[in-house]
């Protein structure tokens, strides 16, 4: 763990250097929307943004991923399980970096390894961009993260003056930062960053006790309040698709013009068809059951299954929900409840 430094106007060139060996996925602005995309040159990346609309989870779990494909006339189907070329995810916020730690627990928990996710993960290095400003939708501290948290990152940039202090965290991060012409940071920068973290954290609403909340939720499965709390929900997929920890998927077989493919595509527990059974029965027929599922999964079941809350407090669902169904308000009505 050590610190280097880079000037803002050197970042483009630094990324150009990385591009020689890695695919670099960085924040870019297209038609007014900021999102992660593979860049062809360092100058495309922007670091002057609050957070991207969609999370960077697509780097490990693309919206559509072909698992198998077969062409007419060929004997064997092709399994797309090959090793991946190295990728650097550059500029993800600490909440998003932390979300990859959660996804690792789902897709590679030591017992079962999803080969598609796993191969991409093995090839990924994450250089995050620490938060020196927050949005009024941020609640990372509640979920165990923080604006300058290093969890999940191989290196982290922290804006200081006209440049960034580069906190080199893992061996992978060192590989990226060494021998690329970055200067060493000055003495005491670690302490400066710790102080900065406290300052920024004060901008965020104080953390809520999630284990207390879990108990309350576990006792409230059948409460009538779910109906009124969720009745404006549109059952679209905005919250789940933008979420850095949501990971539900469907397997879709399609064929066309002599090619058959088996794709993995994103799915959402908010879609009505998500739990539709072949008989036509749907155990989650309305927004009430589906939205309850979302809350319970993230703030109770994930703790049970993965020993980590299924939310990193990035606030995208709060910001982008078309009807402003605020997850914090839903949770707030369960705090201090004893069920019923």
């Amino acid at each position, binding site marked *: 763990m050590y610190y280097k430094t880079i000037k803002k106007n050197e970042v483009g060139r630094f990324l150009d250097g990385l591009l020689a060996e890695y695919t670099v996925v960085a924040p870019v602005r*297209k*038609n*007014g*929307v900021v*999102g992660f995309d593979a860049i062809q040159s360092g100058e495309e990346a922007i670091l002057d*943004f*609050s957070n991207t*609309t*969609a999370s960077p989870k697509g780097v490990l779990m693309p*919206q*559509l991923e072909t698992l198998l494909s077969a062409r007419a006339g060929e004997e064997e189907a092709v399994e797309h399980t090959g090793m991946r070329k190295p990728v650097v995810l550059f500029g993800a916020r600490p909440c998003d970096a932390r979300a990859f730690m959660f996804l690792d627990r789902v897709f590679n928990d030591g017992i079962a390894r999803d080969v598609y996710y796993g191969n991409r993960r093995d090839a990924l290095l994450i250089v995050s961009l620490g938060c020196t*400003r927050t*949005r*009024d*939708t941020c609640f990372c501290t509640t979920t165990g993260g923080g604006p300058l948290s290093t969890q999940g990152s191989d290196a982290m940039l922290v804006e200081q003056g006209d440049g960034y202090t580069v906190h080199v965290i893992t061996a992978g991060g060192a590989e990226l930062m060494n021998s690329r012409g970055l200067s060493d940071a000055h003495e005491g920068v670690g302490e400066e960053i710790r102080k900065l973290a406290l300052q920024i954290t004060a901008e965020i609403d104080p953390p809520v006790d999630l284990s207390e909340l879990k108990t309350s939720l576990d006792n409230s499965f059948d409460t009538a309040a779910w109906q*009124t709390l969720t*009745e*404006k929900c*549109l*059952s*679209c*997929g*905005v919250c789940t*698709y*933008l979420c850095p920890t949501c990971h539900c998927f*469907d397997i*879709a077989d*399609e064929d066309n013009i002599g090619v058959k493919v088996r*794709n993995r*595509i*994103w799915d*959402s527990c908010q*879609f*009505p*068809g998500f739990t539709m059974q072949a008989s036509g029965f749907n155990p989650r027929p309305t927004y009430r059951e589906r939205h309850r599922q979302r809350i319970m999964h993230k703030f109770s079941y994930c703790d049970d299954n993965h020993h980590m809350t299924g939310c990193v407090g990035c606030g995208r669902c*709060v*910001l*982008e929900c*078309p*009807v*402003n*169904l*605020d997850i*914090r*308000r839903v949770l707030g009505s369960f705090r201090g409840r004893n069920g019923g």
Partner: protein
Amino acid sequence: MNPTDCSNRIAEEAGRLLTEGTVDVVIGFEKGSLPMRSTPCFVRTPQDSGKLVWNSFCSSNLSRYLKQFPGKVGIVAKGCDTRALVELIKEKQVNRESLVVIGVPCRGMIDGAGVLERCDGKRVSDVEERDDELVITGDSFRITLARGDFLHPACRVCFTGNPVLFDVLIGEKVQEQARDCYHDVSDFESRSPGDRWAYIMSEMDRCIRCYACRNACPLCYCGECFADATRPQWVGRGATGTDTLAFHVMRSMHLAGRCVECGACRAACPTKVDIRTLNRKISSDIARLFDYRPGLRIDQPAPLSSFKPDDSEEFILER
């Protein structure tokens, strides 16, 4: 009428309807959890009617919720919302007799995201609406913006700010903008096909297939949407440019003659895809070819459920 007076009048009206038992629930808006957001709310008791607000951030089309409320319903509706009501009544999805429409004349809704961008990411603590201005106060700043610069795209071309159907009208009618401005469509069509294709595909590439557009639309009420059907499968479900285009083309064809251009779709879209270009093209053709505009009169048959013997054949290769 300024937002505060509007809100009070709506709350009064809702309280009265609930007290008298004329309706079981009033669908309206309450203050959102973020600046420049209002959020749908469902008021069931007179005491709760005080929650109801009205301002320039009420962009959702509340008609979308009617099907989840059987029984007698009050609904707060701006111009475009009432046009959706007309279509829903025409399609027998909603009973006129069980509705009390609290109509609110509208000068257009503000796109809060656009305002936030102008504030450079600084936190906003208060927004005051003053006639044609927005006064934004926040983290050590205060700016005044011209309302007209921040309207949702659908509102810029709206010609029905006044409710077309209502039982109660809140405040005075507003001056309507010029009618039937489809310049955006003709401007787009003056570009070369290659240019248009490139634009459309770059918009489609931004779509993540979250279906917020479809689910926010009051006229998209099918029990099973074609996009979710697997036998047969009409469109792939992945967010690939061509499948996404097929989804939006088909959805806009399904909305042909029914889309009231409320813009709820675009307002709901998290990546701001220009979906409306398709609906605008169809609306413009329907206006030109069949002299019809959706959602204005219950007694006007829908254009795709009717025909004239001398309908245009300009597109036919051989007659």
